[in-house]
């Protein structure tokens, strides 16, 4: 059962540059793990995502869907979760947010 499931932990920002690199690594992993039935992407250490990052996640979803596998996203911070929600990702796969936030989102960022 364990071998059927793979959890990945991307880090940093998922944008145009990083999403391309993560996708290349993921494609290689997915290619070598033909028997993989469930892919879990843990976004706990991803602080920013834009549509390029979303495109990468959708690419993974298509690969897993193509092999009758499942995919889920977990540990998304509030700001990342908001983008995932807006994109409609939740209609395709389970998306879970971080239980406790490392940063209070309503807090002021700038100079006082």
């Amino acid at each position, binding site marked *: 059962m364990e071998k059927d499931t793979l959890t990945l932990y991307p880090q940093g920002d998922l944008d*145009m540059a990083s999403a391309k690199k993560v996708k290349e690594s993921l494609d290689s992993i997915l290619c070598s793990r033909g028997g993989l039935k469930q892919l879990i992407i843990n976004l706990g250490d991803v602080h920013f995502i834009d549509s390029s990052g979303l*495109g990468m996640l959708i690419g993974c979803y298509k690969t897993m869907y193509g092999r009758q596998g499942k995919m889920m996203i977990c540990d998304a911070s509030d700001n990342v979760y908001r983008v995932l929600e807006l994109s409609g990702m939740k209609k395709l796969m389970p998306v879970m947010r971080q239980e406790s936030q490392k940063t209070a989102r309503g807090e002021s960022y700038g100079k006082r």
Partner: protein
Amino acid sequence: MGNDNRVELRVKSIGENVSLVRMMASGFLYPYDVTFDVLDEIKIALSEAVSNCMIHGYDNAEDQEVVVTMEVQNRHLTIQVQDTGVGIVDIARAMEPAFSTREEHMGLGFVFMQTFMDHIEVCSEPGKGTTVIMRKQLPAGEQQMSDAG
């Protein structure tokens, strides 16, 4: 509180520079006492606009230039992102949700820009390039609100 300010950044059209532009936005907005939520919204919109220039405007060519201008006047933020790439033939269609000329993209770039900014304007001419202008009123910071009593 932050005085009125303006900054212009010209970056080579390589993907790594998208995060550099976001960092510039963080630094530029620091004096304006915005919340992390507002900062995130602006960074997402900016990231989409700059990525669009590189991916679509320049077809991923890395020897071109994207010009980003940010200006704040009376807490009204204006961001202009400009390329001299292929341009957009049908702007209205390009701005439709889920429309993309590329299979691997979700067509959400303009959706995010429209969602996270107050106003967006797109000027484009095929063969000459595209300019995106985004505006957002920065909410009053906590310090300003306490000053007002």
